[in-house]
């Protein structure tokens, strides 16, 4: 293999993995505060379509990025209101958010599907994604606010007793997660495959969700996990194109085999798994209890 070929492969891996890193790191912070948001796919699609429509209408990348972020703030804000104030079931609400996002994005984007646009250079986002993982890692382990987020996720009653505002903290982490998902969607429709088509995220929101567990709620592991996932997918394409004679099912299985191996590896140490999973994940918080 020549150097150019390897650089080319790495390049494609970077481009295709970045949306997983964005959505995954956002969800990681949300889950660290004890809230499970299954609505990533919906948030990504709405972020993607909002950015795309704004770009078509205004031709301005800044506006489109801004509105895409706003869409994430609004949708995840609604999710936060439902699960935090009305204390609805997080899993059901998250699923509803996904279904809602799929429908809403399809409806909004109907007139705009198939409008040609000029894509944005993906490298800005790739650099930002690495910075983000580093910053989130630093935030969660080295800053006071980060420790508050974790305290809220570990035991919301104790955190409340210590004088921390559980609801406010969770609002902020949910909205952070929502914005990250919107950015992942924006990246997909503006940089990765510059177009809008219904359901174009094709399940990447779910992969990002799996990655958070896969990473045992640790930012750097999320980055590694995302790149294993993305790398295996691109590797199998390269093997196919080179003409390696392996059955098709094997190519299909490879990403899942990699996931399984890492999951087995991680869960072999039960203490560590327990230590990093937020204890209050998916448990509703009642202020007066």
């Amino acid at each position, binding site marked *: 293999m020549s150097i150019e070929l390897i650089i080319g492969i790495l390049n494609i891996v970077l481009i295709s993995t970045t*949306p997983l890193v964005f959505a995954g790191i956002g969800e990681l912070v949300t889950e660290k505060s004890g809230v499970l948001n299954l609505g990533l796919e919906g948030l990504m699609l709405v972020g993607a379509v909002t950015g795309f429509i704004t770009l078509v209408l205004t031709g301005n990348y800044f506006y489109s990025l801004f509105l895409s972020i706003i869409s994430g703030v609004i949708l995840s804000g609604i999710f936060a209101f439902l699960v935090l104030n009305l204390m609805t079931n997080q899993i059901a609400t998250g699923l509803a958010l996904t279904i809602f996002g799929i429908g809403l994005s399809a409806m909004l984007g109907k007139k705009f*599907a*198939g409008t040609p646009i000029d*894509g944005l250079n993906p490298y800005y986002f790739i650099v930002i994604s690495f910075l983000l993982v580093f910053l989130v890692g630093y935030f969660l382990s080295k800053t006071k606010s980060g420790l508050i987020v974790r305290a809220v996720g570990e035991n919301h009653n104790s955190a409340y007793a210590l004088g921390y505002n559980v609801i406010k903290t969770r609002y902020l982490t949910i909205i952070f997660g929502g914005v990250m998902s919107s950015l992942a969607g924006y990246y997909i429709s503006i940089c*990765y*495959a*510059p177009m809008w088509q219904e359901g174009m995220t094709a399940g990447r929101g779910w992969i990002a969700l799996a990655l958070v567990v896969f990473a045992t709620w640790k930012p750097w592991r999320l980055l590694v996990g995302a790149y294993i996932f993305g790398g295996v997918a691109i590797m199998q*394409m390269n093997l*196919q194109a080179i003409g390696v004679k392996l059955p098709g099912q094997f190519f299909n299985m490879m990403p899942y085999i990699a996931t399984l191996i890492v999951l087995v590896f991680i869960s072999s140490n039960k203490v560590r798994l327990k230590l990093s999973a937020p204890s209050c994940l998916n448990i509703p918080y009642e202020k007066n209890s």
Partner: protein
Amino acid sequence: MKKQSLVLVVIAAIVVIAGIFFITNQNIQKDVSDDQKKIGFIYIGPPGDHGWTYMHDVGRQYLEKELGDSVSTTYIENVPENADAVRSIRKLAESGHDLIFTTSFNYMDQTLEVASEFPDVKFEHATGFKRADNVSTYSARFYEGRTVIGHIAGKMTKTNTIGYIVSFPIPEVIRGINAFYLAASKVNPDVKIKIIWVYSWYDPGKEADAANTLINQGADIIVQHTDSYAPCQAAEKAGVLAFGQASNQEAFCPNAHMTAIEDIWGPYYAAKAQAVVDGTWSSEDTWQGFKDGMVEMSPYNEKLLSSDLIAEAKAIEEGIENGTIHSFEGPIYNQAGELVVKEGEVADDGMLASMMFYVQGIDGEVPQ
């Protein structure tokens, strides 16, 4: 206070729901006139994919325009190729549709299953090969278009490497690869094709990844048998050439798009719907190509192709139309070197319909 607001919310909800029912009921009443035939469509993707489903939807609109008030059409989009399809097809059958088009290969068994439950409803399954008394099959000879683009690709490639992105290993797709390769290797014996199976009809991200991988491995022409225009866009970005798929995609990749194979379903849909209106519908197998206008080539890109090459491509189109050229002319060998089509003969439709082998010269194996 709290109770009062709760009561208000409940009343508001009831009013809204009643309103929705009122409006939808009105629509239903408007749609149902006595002798109007209802035609349903099952789509695998969204009509906005500007590929496969888009062309079926163009066909549906053509049907509506041609037949006017004697029919009304409905479609269900994004129907997955699994047990869900049964539910969607049954939904159309139950709601009084007279003719239902299921527009993807893997709806085959699901279509037959529902068809056996509704003997009075007519079904039309695209690209399949299983029929019943109330199930017809229809398909376009896309491979004729593959012969044209194969010829162009063989002449245009400089690296002698062509990247081919494919969805699922089904006869239609394999046939396309073979037709393409036979035509390309005929004008350029050194040509190699690299094939990537993405196991999806529609995932723009994955399709773009596959295109970039192929380009990275030296392909200077990208061919696809998937539904989005992401591969063509990726080719445009990388400065290599590509062919559109199912519809004219030149708007998305003007400097890469040489031509595209277009599926023209409208006239067929209109004819079959008319047959239902007239009561003359019967189960049959339709397989049409250039000759009947079910397959067409998009305008050749004059910026990229020389006028000589365009003339050659048009000559192939004409030859296929009047029968002097066939996409599968013998001698054709399979990968094991066995003669499958003898010299002076052409592959018959039976062989084409069940083609699950690569011809000699293609590297790799057909995934099982």
